[in-house]
Each structure stands twice: as structure tokens, then as C-alpha cells.
């Protein structure tokens, strides 16, 4: 980025003005992001009358009862537990299934390979909504309604296309020489996959794990229709219900919602690299 040397820029005053404008725009957009988020976080510390009078400034006095209620609500922890469980199962299903399939699709010639890959990429177009009714019937028939598996299995299936699309080019890029060397050492496909490919692809696999966890953590439609018993609810279902239950108690809603939002944000700040690269490498030829 040190390339602005010889270029004929206007007088420095004009330059600063332009730069200032850029900062102004960037800062305004930043505000538009931060204000709603902080409204939720700080709003949880207000009373409803404070919210009505002045939703913008700092609470006066700070009200702790909303967060207290939420944090001592056993059902809140139930939702968190269910969400974590479902996210873990989903990821545990996606990682092996997607990597095994992407591995042979990327590395081996076989009849119908392109068809199989096309079938999986086609899945990028199907939202759960399109299949939700028969999925519901299938889950009812197999007794998976109201069970974490009833969410994790379909979620994993719907997560396969993106995972395979991300994994395939990576597996492809690993030099053939490695495979030859492994073959000389007597490695069959399974050994090669397990001892060479997987260790090499740890970054991509972690990207996929992160994307799967995020997708599962945020899922709404499938849990909404499949998890009917409140004890089975996930965090989004719980929050949706809270917002109906406390219709007029905005401050309480905000406290619960903030508590649901914070783990996702922390996770994002930790795993930002995986999330961003995972979502963009699929979309932009790298």
C-alpha cells in the first residue's frame, strides 16, 4: 500500500477533505451497525419507562433486574444446552461425510463423478423451506420429532453442498506427488485420506466446522416446526417465544436477546478469519 509516491495528487488541503469525507461515511455506517446492537445491550439495563422516555442515552439508574431474571431462568440454560448439542451433532455429521465425499470427488476418476458433484451443488439452491413439509412427515414417521437428531440430521444434509463446494478445490490443489509417494509407501485411499489429506486440510475443515456451527446456532425454521415441546427448544426458538411472551416488556426482551447475541458475537470475533474466508473463497475464485 506504499504506492502513492509519484502520483500527482491535488493540493494537500483538498486531499484531506476527500479523506475526511471517506471517514465520515465509514463512521456513519459504523454507527448504523453499532447503535442497534448497543441499544439492545444497554436497553436490557433500562426500565420500560426509561426506554419510552429516552432510548438513546445511558440508563439512569442502571436496572439489573432484567438480566437477573434472564440469567436465573432455567429454561434459558435449557435453550443454550439444546443449541450447543444440536450444533455439535450437526458438525460431527457434516465433517466426516463432506470430507470423505469431497475427497473422492476431487481426487479419483469414476463414472458419474460429475453427476454426483452436480447433485450436491444443486443443493445450494434448496432452502430447508422447500422440503420442510415432507421432512416433517419423514421425521414424524421415524420418531425424530422433538429430538435433537431430528434437527441435526437434516441440517447436516443441507450443510453438505456448501461444505463439499469449499472442500473440493482444496483437496484438488494438494499435489499429486504426495499421493504417489503415499502409494509407494503402501497407502490406500483411506490411509491417504486419513493420514495425509486430513492433517493438511485442518484450516479448511475448521472453516467448515465454524460455518456449520454458526448455521446451526442460528437456524429457525426447522426447529420451529420440529421442536414442539418447550424443553427441546433451541435459543432462537426461546428468544422468539420471549418476544411474544413479554410483548409489552421491551427491556426484558432486550435482556434475553442480548444474552443470546453475545455468544454469537464472541464466536465471530474469535473465528472471524474462518468465517470470512470460508464464505468468500467459495464465492470468489481464489
Amino acid at each position, binding site marked *: *500500500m506504499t504506492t502513492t509516491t509519484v*502520483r500527482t495528487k491535488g493540493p494537500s488541503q483538498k486531499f484531506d477533505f476527500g*479523506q475526511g469525507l*471517506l*471517514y465520515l461515511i*465509514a463512521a456513519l455506517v459504523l454507527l448504523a*451497525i453499532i*447503535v442497534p446492537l448497543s441499544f*439492545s445491550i444497554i436497553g436490557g439495563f433500562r426500565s420500560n419507562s426509561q*426506554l419510552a422516555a*429516552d432510548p*438513546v442515552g445511558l440508563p439512569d439508574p442502571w436496572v439489573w433486574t432484567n438480566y437477573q431474571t434472564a440469567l436465573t431462568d432455567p429454561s434459558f440454560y435449557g435453550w443454550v444446552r439444546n443449541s450447543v448439542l444440536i450444533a455439535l451433532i450437526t458438525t460431527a455429521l457434516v465433517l466426516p*461425510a463432506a470430507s470423505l*465425499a469431497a475427497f*473422492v*470427488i476431487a*481426487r*479419483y476418476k*469414476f463414472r458419474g463423478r460429475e453427476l454426483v458433484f452436480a447433485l450436491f*451443488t444443486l443443493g445450494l*439452491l434448496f*432452502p430447508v*423451506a*422447500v*422440503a420442510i*413439509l*415432507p*421432512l416433517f*412427515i*419423514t421425521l414424524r414417521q421415524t420418531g425424530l420429532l422433538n429430538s435433537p437428531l431430528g434437527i441435526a440430521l437434516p441440517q*447436516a*444434509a*443441507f450443510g*453438505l453442498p*456448501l461444505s463439499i463446494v469449499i472442500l473440493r478445490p482444496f483437496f484438488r490443489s494438494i499435489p*499429486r*506427488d504426495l499421493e*504417489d*509417494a503415499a*502409494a509407494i509407501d503402501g497407502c490406500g*485411499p483411506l490411509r491417504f485420506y486419513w493420514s495425509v489429506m486430513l492433517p493438511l486440510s485442518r484450516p479448511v475443515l475448521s472453516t467448515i466446522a465454524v460455518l456449520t456451527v454458526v448455521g446451526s446456532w442460528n437456524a*429457525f*425454521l426447522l426447529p*420451529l416446526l420440529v421442536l414442539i415441546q418447550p424443553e427441546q427448544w433451541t435459543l*432462537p426458538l426461546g*428468544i*422468539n417465544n*420471549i*418476544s411474544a411472551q413479554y410483548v409489552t416488556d421491551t427491556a426484558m*426482551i432486550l435482556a434475553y436477546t442480548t444474552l*443470546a447475541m453475545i455468544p*454469537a458475537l464472541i*464466536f465471530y470475533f474469535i473465528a472471524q478469519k474462518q*468465517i470470512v474466508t470460508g*464464505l*468468500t473463497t467459495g*464465492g*470468489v*475464485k*481464489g
Partner: protein
Amino acid sequence: MVISDPQVKVTRPNRIGRRAPGTAPWPVIFAFLLPALALYTLFVLYPITQSIRYSGYDWNGLEPLTDWVGLQNFRDAFADPLFIEAITHNGIIIGLSLLLQIPFAVALAVLLTRNLKGRGVFRTMYFAPFILSEVVTGVVWRQIYRPNGLFDQVLAGVGAGDLSREWLADPKIALYSLFFVISWKYFGFHMVLILAGLQLIPTELEEASAIDGASFWKGFRYVTLPLLGPTIRVSMFLSIIGALQLFDLVWVTTKGGPVNSTATMATYLVDWGFRRGQFGFASAVSVIVFGLSLIVALLYQRFVLRRDLEGALTT
């Protein structure tokens, strides 16, 4: 890992009992594919074919499938003004996304490639809403949009108080209020996608055009933008597919109301399937959604994406 060619050739023949790399017996291939194929068939392909089957019946989801009605469900759907309205709403969201949200994302991406201090922070924060669930987003914005809530107060604060509306309760503007939330949540994703595309453009090209005396705008218009084409097209495609399937955010904030003004195809589908128990009819609707997505994807592949790339589709 350098293995000279002769060596490889020596070790390749099958007499040692080993196959040349790149091939494996089909049972091995099949075993590798099996977990993914089984999951995918059972929970994606099979349900979708079932949707098509159910769509020909008048069925409440419980009794045996007996009441074959042919294409009647499809005729009913297209004859229902509420369904046509729902499709129109999806269309409006698509139009607005392409006209406003994506250009905005492009502009911000270009802005962030300028010499700004702290652009990493800007990028991180712009992308942050994308990570939140639609439920959290919807619930928070519902509170923000309340009469005399944060949105109104901010408007009043900048001296535009008389713009205040019933943001989610006025059928004339509820859809646009929702679009604002959608853009709030998703522009960062598109921006990051476009930033990644911008990084693929060699800076020499932009520098060359600047040295040739092209203004920033001209350089952008004639150098950057054409080279950014493929990325923008991917972005547009993802935006269209996302808008066709819009459900969560609408369901959480307005459930499709008031008076159907924010209904989408997906909310219409869930409403008929699960609230009114018309599984056959709702399946027909899901086949329509699926068909539209497929048509859009094929057209896009055919006319827009074709030359760009394989495996271009993310989320």
C-alpha cells in the same frame, strides 16, 4: 516432495498390486461417498421428490394420500391474490437488493480499499450483523421500530421527526422497513465478498490508469468495475436466491402482516402447511418456490455466470 518421473513410472504398474493414482475400485469410491449420499438422499432429495408427489393431492398431512387432484393445487395457488402478492413481495425485495443493497456494498468495499486507518475495524464491524441469527435481528429491530422507539427518536434527533411512521404496522411501508433490516444484516456479507474480489485485481492496472490521467471515477468505471464483474454477479445471484427464500426475519418481525403486506412465498407456504394443515396445497407452493429458484439459477448460470467459475455458489 520431488519425485523424479522415471521413478514414478517404475512403481506405477499393477504388478506390485497397486493401482495408478486417480483411480480406485468402485466399492471403495462408493464407501467414501456413502455417508454423504445417504444423508443427502434421505433428508434433501427424497423430501423434495415427496413435495412434488404431495403437490398433486388434497391432503391434510395425516390421513392416507388418496385425494388426487392433479394440478388443481397449482391452479389454486396462482388464482390466490394473496399468493401473487407474496411473489410480488419477494420480487420487490430482489429489486431493491439489486438496486440499492449491492451498489451500497460495492461502494463501501471500494471505500475500504482506500487508505483508511482502521479499515480492519470497519470491515469487522460491518460484517458483524451477518453473524447474528435472524431471530435476534428481527426481535431487536421490532423493538427499534416501535412507535416512539429508537428509530423515531433518532429521526427526531436529526430533525426529521415528522418522517415517523408505524414502521411495521403500516401496510404501505412495512415491507420497506423489513428491507432496511435485511440490508442492515446482509450488506456486510456482500461487501466482504466484493472486497475479496477487489483483492484479485492487480493494483498495477488501477495505478496505470491513474498515471494515464484517469480520474478516480474513470478508473473505477472502466478498470475496476469490469474486472469486478464476476464477483458482483455472484453477489447478485446469492442475493436473488436469498430473497426468493426469505422467511425467518419476516416470521419473527411481522409474520407476513399487517394484512399480508410482508408475506413472502415461504411464509405463505408455512402458513398453509402448518397453521391450516393443507399439506398438499402447501407442497404445491414449495414446488413453485423450488421451480423459481431453479429457473433463476439456470438462467443465471446460462447468461451471467457461465464464463466465470465452477463452484461459485456459496450459502
